[in-house]
């Protein structure tokens, strides 16, 4: 009886969560003020993180909170401040023709039907993963999938992140005269002091997340995004890279994650093994090595994406 009560309560909670998600998404899109829309989007991300927790996906929850909501939100906000004119109220809409509604309703029906028709119980690859955990070098299944079983995906995904940065740099205006951002975001001194205290703490958290990833939720992406958050705070505090670091040392830091991944992936082939086929004995260490480099690069890359411009080569002034 009690179990059923809990069951029903949990279902209500889920229902509430789902409805909140849909409403937040809708409000975020339809908000008259874009700033409000972005804030609502961040809230949406945080509620989504709760949903991930409810779905037993703590890794995704962490990634969502840090990257999906946090960094994406920050990126959206700084972009908004740089736009030529941020006025868009009421939101300019194209007339939504009947055809569009028909299309959406049909899509909803078809997709919903397809999902309902799937079997109620399915193992997926859970058992396969569980049976191979002993050979993966780590104890946490998600990390094992990310860095070992499907490590090749992650390797390419690091390349995607690097790509985003290269693209952002190649698009950035070539001679950035002054930091527009400084003018855009003026922060009170007390908050600044708080930020300064937070930065070392966040670096510590990042290191912990990285280390814990081997056997519990956490890992390179979550750690990297926390590191990035630290970087963002540092940028907000007015910290800039020193000129002598802004050249190739910075570039090296940015490619380090991908480069290390490629290097390890290729190096294990020397003995005739396949790409990314870690020797069992050193798998754990190699994965940690890759993750450490990746964390560093992810943090740096995301922070650089946030800053939105290439650091100038000249001496910091």
């Amino acid at each position: 009886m009690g179990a059923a009560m809990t069951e029903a309560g949990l279902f209500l909670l889920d229902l509430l969560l789902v409805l909140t998600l849909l409403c937040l998404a809708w409000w975020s899109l339809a908000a008259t003020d874009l700033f409000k829309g972005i804030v609502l989007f961040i809230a949406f991300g945080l509620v989504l993180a709760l949903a991930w927790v409810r779905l037993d996906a703590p890794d995704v929850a962490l990634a969502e909170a840090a990257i999906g909501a946090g960094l994406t939100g920050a990126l959206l906000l700084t972009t908004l401040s740089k736009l030529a004119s941020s006025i868009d109220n009421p939101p300019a809409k194209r007339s939504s023709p009947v055809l569009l509604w028909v299309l959406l309703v049909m899509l909803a029906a078809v997709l919903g039907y397809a999902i309902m028709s799937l079997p109620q119980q399915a193992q997926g690859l859970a058992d396969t993963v569980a049976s191979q955990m002993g050979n993966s070098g780590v104890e946490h299944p998600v990390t094992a999938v990310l860095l070992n079983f499907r490590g090749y995906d992650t390797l390419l995904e690091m390349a995607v992140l690097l790509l985003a940065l290269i693209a952002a740099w190649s698009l950035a205006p070539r001679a950035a005269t002054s930091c527009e951002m400084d003018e855009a975001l003026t922060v009170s001194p007390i908050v600044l002091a708080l930020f300064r205290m937070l930065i070392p703490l966040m670096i510590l958290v990042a290191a912990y997340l990285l280390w814990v990833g081997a056997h519990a939720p956490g890992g390179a992406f979550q750690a990297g995004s926390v590191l990035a958050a630290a970087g963002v705070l540092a940028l907000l505090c007015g910290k800039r890279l020193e000129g002598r670091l802004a050249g190739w040392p910075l570039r090296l830091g940015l490619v380090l994650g991908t480069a290390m991944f490629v290097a390890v992936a290729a190096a294990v082939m020397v003995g005739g093994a396949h790409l990314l086929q870690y020797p069992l004995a050193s798998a754990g260490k190699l994965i940690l090595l890759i993750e450490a480099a990746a964390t560093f690069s992810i943090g740096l890359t995301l922070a650089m994406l946030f800053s939105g411009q290439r650091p100038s080569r000249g001496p910091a002034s």
Partner: protein
Amino acid sequence: MIEASGTPLPWIVWVILLPLIGAMLCFLWPRQGKTLGLLTALATLLAVIALYFQLLDGGVIRYAVGGWGAPLGIALYADGLSMLMLLMSALVGVGVSLYALGYFKHSPDNPAGFWPLWLLMWTGLNGLFVAGDIFNLYVTLELLGLSAVALVALAASRDALGGAMRYLFVSLLGSLCYLIGVALLYHAYGTVDIALLGTLVERNPATHVALGLMVVAMLLKSALFPLHFWLPPAHASAPAPVSALLSALVVKASFYLLLRLWFDVFSTVSMDLGMVLGVLGAAAIVWGSVLALRQTRLKLLVAYSTVAQLGYLFLPFALLSPLAWQGGVYFVLSHALAKAAMFMAAGNILAFGGHDRIADLDRVAQRLPITMTAFCLAGVSLMGLPPSGGFIAKWLLLDAALSHDQWGWAVMMMIGGLLAAAYVFKVVGFAFTQADAPHDAQPVSPFMEWSALALAVCAILLGLNAHYPLELLAIGGPVTFVSPSP
């Protein structure tokens, strides 16, 4: 089929890693970008050739990344079809790399980003062509799409930025549609491995919806009429080497992926959709050609020509015979070479006269003979005149259509060929005459002229040795690709 384990140099891996490494090096040392980029291009070409010989020796290659094998790990897979795509990309890639050496010397477009972005795009292309896993394909698709968008935006003009923006939205929308399909397939069958899925897939709602979504995603990305609206602005406003890459390779990648899904994943599911694709293809041929003919700017004309030519690729879905499939794949190859050459030639003309208004081409036939030769040879292939790759492709498609009395398709192809001739010769004609107001001319780098010509000549040569590509295509090809021996 060979398990490529234990081979000291698994080339299937290196065709992906080499451009990736090159991209990182180019990013680290931007000043050496040209040298590093060119070296990487050549190294990648060599790796692709090495893989080709490996494939000839041992047949289809299947490679388990990480040694896990499907369904847990990711498999790489190369058969004749993927090999042809790899070779095509390598050939066009080297050509475009040489072209870029000259192009960015004088162009106002931003050169620093080109090399790393292009090499990352190549990574995405090669990764896509040898992927044996539908989720891995999603990642390669994103790598490809995002790098393509970034490359378009290098031109930094208003048109280019707008075109890139639209392209980005289309690309992301397509990827997400595709990803929903992946989610449905994974949760229905518990694997994302293409080969396994091929054996497991059965007729049920999830499969059909996944098929529909994935097909729509690929049509969007390969700009099949009426989903082509994004292509001309993006392809026409990009820097010339980028236009060449986009029209020659990027749209083909999504078409390739569609073929893979169609034959290797969904082969047991109803193919009723094929007729729809064929009809859309035919519509694309006419619509794209007519619009190409109406353009007054050279690069837009060439871009609309791509819309038209892509239509041919979808005719085999309706013709449904081995010959038609061979024709379709041949079309992919010949169009890649010819269109790359044509965009490069258009870029030369633009660099030469500072504009690309067709009516004011002002004697480029005399003043840029090599470029004009490249343009004409590429045009011959697009029109499907002998001897050219385009002719072989059209011959195969016509043969397929006529041997089953499918008249409509044959007539469409003829109309398409004539319209292609009309828009190609519209340009050629004005290239002879003198413009009212003579223009100043800028010198054009010999790299740009000769690389365009080289690719155009390749498009012609493709029409003389159709045996080799077709035999290669038969290696491990789906049953429908291999024709009964004549």
